[in-house]
């Protein structure tokens, strides 16, 4: 979070809140003339990565909901938000990928082998 960004955010907007990952959300003080609504933005806690925004704040950020959704109300089926890991060591790699051993079946597709007695 650069000093200039914090300064301009403080001057032109007001802070709405901070999510559980430490990202800070702002809303502009005046309405944009074309849209008839105020601008909303986020200052990331860490490097700029839009996938850091959890769904509760994502909805608010994109003007889907007037206020951020509750971060405390959780259902059993809800999974924790995860930023996009592509390009990092934690990225998903299918079985047989070079980085997870690289042992691939020469013929690709699956098959069921015969065994005596089957």
């Amino acid at each position, binding site marked *: 979070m650069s000093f200039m960004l914090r300064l301009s955010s403080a001057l032109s907007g007001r802070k709405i809140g901070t999510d559980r990952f430490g990202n800070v959300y702002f809303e502009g003080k005046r309405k944009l003339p074309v849209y008839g609504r105020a601008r909303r933005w986020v200052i990331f806690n860490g490097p700029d990565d839009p996938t850091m925004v959890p769904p509760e704040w994502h909805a608010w950020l994109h003007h889907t909901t007037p206020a951020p959704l509750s971060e405390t109300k959780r259902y059993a089926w809800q999974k924790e938000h995860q930023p996009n890991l592509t390009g990092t060591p934690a990225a998903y790699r299918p079985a047989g990928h070079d980085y997870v051993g690289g042992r691939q079946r020469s*013929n*690709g597709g699956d*098959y*069921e*082998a015969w065994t*005596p*007695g089957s």
Partner: protein
Amino acid sequence: MAKVTVDGVEVEVPNGASVLQACEAAGKEIPRFCYHERLSVAGNCRMCLVEVEKAPKPIASCSYPVADGMKVFTDTPMVRNGRRGVMEFLLINHPLDCPICDQGGECDLQDEAVAYGMDRSRFQEGKRSIKDKYVGPLVKTIMNRCIHCTRCVRFCTEVAGVPELGATSRGETMEIGTYVEKALTTELSGNLIDICPVGALTSRPYAFASRPWELRKTDSVDVLDATGCNIRVDTRAGEVLRIQPRTNDEVNEEWLHDRGRFSFDGLKRRRLDRPWVKRDGKLRPATWAEAFDAIAARMKGLPGERIGAAVGDLVDAEAIVALKDLMAGLGSHNLECRIDGAAVDASRPDFWRFNTTIAGIDEADALLIIGSNPRQEAPVLNARIRRRTLAGTFPVGYIGPRGVNLTYGHDWLGEGPETLRALLDGSHRFSEALGRAERPMLILGRGALARPDGAAVLAAAWQVASRHNMLRPDWHGFNLLHLFGGQVGALELGFVAPPDLAPPGPPQALWLLGADGFDASRIPADTFVVYQGHHGEAAAARADVILPGCAYTEKEGTWVNTEGRVQRGRLAVHPPGEAREDWKIIRAASEVLGARLPYDTLAAVRARLVEVNPVFARPDRLERRGCEDKSGPAGDPGSLSDAPFALPISNYWQADVVSRASETMAECARVLLPAVPERIAAE
């Protein structure tokens, strides 16, 4: 002939041809949905509009006959507007579900919509919706997408000969279906998927599997029946995802039978993917080196006459010739390719080929079928017979079980050889029909030879042919219908024991190359058995050494169809695990057995094939031959028994090792077997 001018290009087409055919002759493509070259003309989609000089309105070119001097325009504002209008009407009720439609990418409606579709809809009302129908385990229906071209109805009625599909209601409420819910009882149902121009009829096993542009396409040939249908194997990431027919007017036209099309999932089950060696009475996984050591230990030094070899139904010619040469190197003459026990006479090609050729059926004018049900043994060939029966007078006599439904009318003559005897002395009523015919033919089923008096049946059938003027230098009417794609190749290569050389006793070692489907307990207990093949079944379980080979989609191979047409199959996917190409396995084994085969490359094996039989020099080409030599096969018609003929295939869907391993085919057998009337009341 009529002279027609299409967009300024003058073409000559036969009288009675349609305007659409004239346009095609002039190289103009006409959009169409309901018209299909091999079906009757319906003229109900109206997409094929063209303008004809002096006609007040655009005309549907597919159903409009040409007239001499006609001037046709295929690209005028009137034509384009007409087609746009038709397209708009078609799309009124067609769902916009291309993203989830299996036809996407190969859909005629998509393609034509690019050319004639509007970019928006003017239709404000609700779209029609139709319940999906169940028509069997192979064809999936999404009836909302149907555009009522009735191609499927015409295919079922005309080509497949099972008038089970039809339309109910009319206008907006028209629905295509089977009236009463049931599975289609045809062996050609997969072709409905190809001819449906939209995604209303799609393949159930292929549902949501892939997009056409993701597939690698390999031209190959089907070996699961003896017709030798030309196929295209579509694969992705080393997996066969579907099999489709390729057009070959001389063999399969553009059809493919269901077992050839849908049993490929059997290529992924029960596979032999590594060598096995029997130690202490139990088969154990082994390496190739251990397997060859075990073979060398038991087979090296055995006298040649105590070694035997048998090849199965689906084996390619390369492997057969390699095994034949290996056996010759070991000094063995005990070869057998007729593991079903059919008494095929291997002395002259006339006795084992479909000499009339498949295309020749169109020219024949009388047919006698003996002990065969071509509908189950060669469905595509049967469709051709059916078309011939529709084309004009074509008496069909049938000797075999009573009440078999061949999809065309036939004259049931009798159940067994006594009818043959009557035909032989000319006292049978059908002799007259055959005598009147100019080009009579007979089809002898391979199953009719797989009985104790098989040789007599063959000789009797040959004499029936000879007596009824079927054997002439300009017309050969004697045909043997085989069951599987590898059977003729083995006969062409002479993989049989010389008739005068009987083995001195049971073999001490036996090499089974894909030979399965016979009673393995007939092999003496102390015989050393090598099984080489791609699927494990009874014979593999009995083996002492198992060598994993390739199925027909996994190797470059040569197969010979029942006519004697040499065709090449190509490698579409790699074999599973440690399996290797069959001729290479035999070549490697020859090394350890001390009878080294002289070829190291596929080209060298193929050169050897040509050396053994020159027909292998001309793949894909087949010369029609007359009958030059009327002398018959060995076998005495006098020794015919009275046992009625039994049909060799009782379960069409599970007739070979690949389809027996297939789950799709198992489902078909479950759903359809009781429903197919094997014996319906005589017509």
